[in-house]
């Protein structure tokens, strides 16, 4: 996971032994990453929080199955993506995203804001415009296919390498690159449609 410091082997072993302090250490070090992946994948803060908690519960319950401590981050990301896929299916069955539109108000930590009508790059300096860009991207991500969204989140938002992504998604690097390019082009098209 990109810039995060690697989780120490001792911590992983402590967590495996049921040490709650070690588990708390892991949670505090990885909660932001897990929560952000979940949020970008689901587009809802509350769902993302709940899902991230579920991910850490799964980690605590199944960390004994982790064979190589060095691959902890890839393993944690796989668990997160699996939870995201399941939750996405669950929410889709309940038509949770049917009313979603780029014209809908955008949910942020500071409340909701109207959809960006003008190109936010016209005035990029303002905090409001920055937030608007972020939410435009988030809406655009949610319009993409799930696997495309995963690629963009992992590579462009979380900074995973092609090698890590290849391992996590069990795909060749070439396939990852081509699929990622397709996802970017699709997002460009979505954003072009939504921005005048």
């Amino acid at each position, binding site marked *: 996971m990109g810039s995060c410091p690697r989780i120490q082997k001792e911590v992983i072993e402590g967590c495996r032994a049921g040490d709650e302090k070690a588990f708390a250490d892991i949670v505090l070090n990885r909660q932001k990453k897990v929560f952000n992946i979940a949020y970008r994948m689901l587009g809802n803060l509350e769902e993302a929080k709940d899902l991230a908690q579920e991910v850490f*519960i799964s980690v605590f319950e199944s960390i004994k199955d982790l064979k190589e401590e060095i691959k902890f981050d890839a393993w944690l990301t796989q668990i997160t993506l699996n939870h995201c896929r399941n939750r996405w299916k669950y929410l889709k069955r309940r038509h949770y995203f049917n009313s979603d539109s780029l014209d809908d108000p955008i949910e942020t930590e500071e409340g909701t804001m109207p959809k960006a009508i003008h190109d936010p790059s016209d005035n990029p300096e303002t905090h409001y415009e920055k937030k608007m860009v*972020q939410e435009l991207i988030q809406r655009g991500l949610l319009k993409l296919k799930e696997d495309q969204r995963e690629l963009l989140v992992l590579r462009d938002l979380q900074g995973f390498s092609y090698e890590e992504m290849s391992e996590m998604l069990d795909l060749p690097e070439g396939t990852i690159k081509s699929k990622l390019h397709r996802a970017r082009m699709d997002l460009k098209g979505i954003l072009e449609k939504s921005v005048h």
Partner: protein
Amino acid sequence: MDCEKVRDRFSSFWGKELIPPEEKIIREHLSSCQACQREFEQFEKTMEWLRSVGEERVPNGFFPELQKKMEERKGRAISAERGSGRWLGFPLSLKLPVQAVAMVAVIFLVLYLAKMMPTETYRLKEDTQTAPPLSVEKKPEQVLAQKEVESERGTARAPAEISRQKDVEQVKTPSPGEEKLKETYVPQVKAETKRTEMPASGTEVTEHKIVDSKEATRPQVPSPEPGKIAQGLLAKEKFIVASKPPREITLRVSDRERVTSKVNEIVKQFGGEVVAAEGDMLLVSLPTVSFSEFEKELQDLSPSAKADKAAAKRQILGSAKAAPGGKREEVNEKSEELAKSAVDQDSRTVVRILLTPE
């Protein structure tokens, strides 16, 4: 290189992942193709926006909520484990008896329900009605109850009707020697208890007849064989006489009326009573203890008087067997019936006094 191929390499070109010759080719194309250049500018802006997206802050209370969730799940898991594993955790010494008791209870319940089913009940009832061995093998309580019912019927009947019972094969009397007959069964014999009350004496004679249970189903139907009636009556009479025969005293008298009144006086004197007086015969009931005294008194009336119990018995038996049909025999029959009803089994003696002219 055409526009399509150049646009396919936008990601690689933007990420500087292309080898220098390829990068040069793309750069030259973009400088010459405005459409591709505009497309690349849009792509660049999208990537700029995408990369500008920062990370969201983790909501407050994330970790405490996580801990709370984990505690709840742990509690649920423990309770579920306890719920399902509590019985398994009990020792075998406790589980086996409980399971055995439960099994027995289930078996009894099934049997009870099976018995209570109407079809089964009907079938069983039918079996008891059709199977002769079951009706023959009646319990003593059932036989006694039947006797009770028939005894009630018997009291309602007239004495003449009672005497015409056809199917009597054996009659039981209350003499000590025959006591066992009261309690035993005689195959093919109907048992019946009758109570007839003599108005003059107020004493009771009880007869027990053991009957066939098959015949009990048609108790009022008389037997079509007339010989059997006579046989039955004879047997009945024989049995009564044999069990408690009246003492017989023959008095040779010249003045019959005087002797009769004298006998009446003596009877009263000994605390007895004249049960019947018919022609030359007097039937007297008196306390057994005073019989010998009474006999002596009578002998004083007539020196030729004889009291021979054994002879009297033989005479009665002989008359019953011969059944000559004379007036004397009729009187004897009647006297036997009266004697039967008048006898107080334990304390009184019936004496038949025959007055014969000298």
